[in-house]
């Protein structure tokens, strides 16, 4: 099923797709980061109807180029009523885009999915990836005075930055 979905996604996105796989049944496409808004828009508005951005996160592959990968988990939820039947979730898709260490930025999905707002703020907060076009990109889980981005692999786990109390 994932393979068929990938074929349809490949036709839809054309040369924006760099790589794809369906390992473990998770349909995955790696796309051109410069065209991420175009890609997400096409997936949302086509007949595949990826209407929910379930999850948005990033992974830091330190030492690799591009260093970061922003990962989107899309889902297509059938919101049409079917009598007493529960709603269907016909397909899911994972979209990945590589982000360089410098410039560490990618287009924002906030104009397409409202749910991207808080999740992009979280990725900015913890990984330091800038989402261009985000209306209010500021820290969400950590406090404003915090220095650095803790989920980067080169951020030492032992480092303490308390607002009050002793430093280590």
């Amino acid at each position, binding site marked *: 099923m994932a393979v068929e979905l990938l074929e349809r996604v490949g036709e839809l996105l054309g040369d924006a797709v760099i790589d794809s796989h369906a*390992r*473990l049944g*998770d349909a*995955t496409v790696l796309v051109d980061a410069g065209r991420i808004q175009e890609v997400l828009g096409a997936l949302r508005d086509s007949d595949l109807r990826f*209407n*929910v*951005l*379930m*999850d948005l*996160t990033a*992974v830091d592959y330190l030492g690799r180029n591009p260093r970061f990968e922003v*990962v989107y*988990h899309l889902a297509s*939820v059938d*919101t049409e*009523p079917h009598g007493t*039947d*529960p*709603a*269907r*979730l016909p397909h*899911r898709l*994972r979209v990945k885009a590589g982000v360089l260490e410098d410039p560490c930025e990618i287009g924002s999905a906030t104009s397409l*999915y*409202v*749910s991207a*707002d*808080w999740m992009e703020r*979280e990725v900015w907060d*913890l990984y330091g990836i800038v989402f261009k076009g985000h209306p209010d990109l500021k*820290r*969400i*889980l*950590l*406090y404003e005075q915090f220095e650095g981005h*803790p*989920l980067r692999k080169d951020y030492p*786990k032992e480092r303490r930055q308390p607002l009050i109390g002793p430093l280590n």
Partner: protein
Amino acid sequence: MVTAKKLEPGGKSDLHTDHQILNMGPSHPATHGTVKIVLEIDGEQIVDMEVMVGYLHRGFEKECESGTWYQAIPYTDRLNYNSAILANLSFCMAVEKLLEIELPHRCLWVRTLAGELSRMGDHLTRLGAACLELGAMTPFLYGIEARELVWDLQEMLCGARVTANYIRIGGLQRQVPEGFEDRMAQSLMRIEQLLVDFDKLVTANRIFVDRFRRTGMIPAQRLIEYGVTGPLLRAAGIPLDLRKAEPYLVYDQLDFDVPVGTIGDNYDRFLVCQEELAQSIRIIRQCLPVLRKTRGEPVDVDDPKIRWPAKDRVFGRMEELIQQFKGVTEGVKVPAGEAYSAIESANGELGFYIVSDGTGKPYKVRCRAPSFMNVAPLREMMLGGMLADIVPTFDMINMIGGECDR
């Protein structure tokens, strides 16, 4: 404080009519855990508000990356501490997906039962606390009495009442103890009784209905755009339930219904949660005969590289002792790759996106927390509403600080 001044002699009023800024939280009895809401109010009406989360951030992902795969399981307990088993389950299912292993038949049934038990604990807390925070102490006590019964059963299963640490990669922490099924059947009867009493006390109560009816409403389409799942979405009329949409464990063999609301106000959310409790009891009743029938069958995969042998074998035999030593010190070697796996938790889709680099440690453990996604639309739900409506709306969203802030 805004105070009214005397009327001017000319008849023109000199009342202060400026908007007022009010901080609600971070430490407020109605904000479970800690969340700060900055409100701009005009009298009692909400003009604008900002929800600030993160006060309970403990670096869940960073901590997971520094230990072995097994060592991440107790951290998942501390995400949503109302339904710890469901978080254990979601994490272990993601790892098992990467390992590509098949679980024993009995394990699937016990996991289903434990998950539903956990869901009941979560819903009972939510419903009870919602009443308490509106000033109704008595229904809370009924809810908590039922939750105590749930926690007693959970204690029988795994020795802990709150932070269960019950599900293991490739199995369960231990076998189900003798007499569990009978105790469970008895407790369910008592819980059902308590739910009836709770229902009589609250659901038709005039004050309660006035506080819940037509408050905190938001169109279903907006909820979809916000990525909201779980009882909130179902109360708005979209019957999305992963247990039906993407059946995992043994849900495809079980008979249960997905309750939905009509207009998606707080009252609908309350009713949906009440009905889900009844459905959970129904599911557990279907699991019990299977548990009785399969007693004695293994609950762990038979592979010492994934799940180390049971203690009675470890203490008596050399080979198993070595296997346990290796299992504890090195942990399970998860093949390199990535996987996303999601379950229907008490609050919605609880998913884990994990990346392994083939060493014994997680490279990345991302928790897709339903609480985080569900609390984002709070601002839109409350705009134009009354200050007092925040409390019931916040209760029905059931934002759990540990899971939201991770």
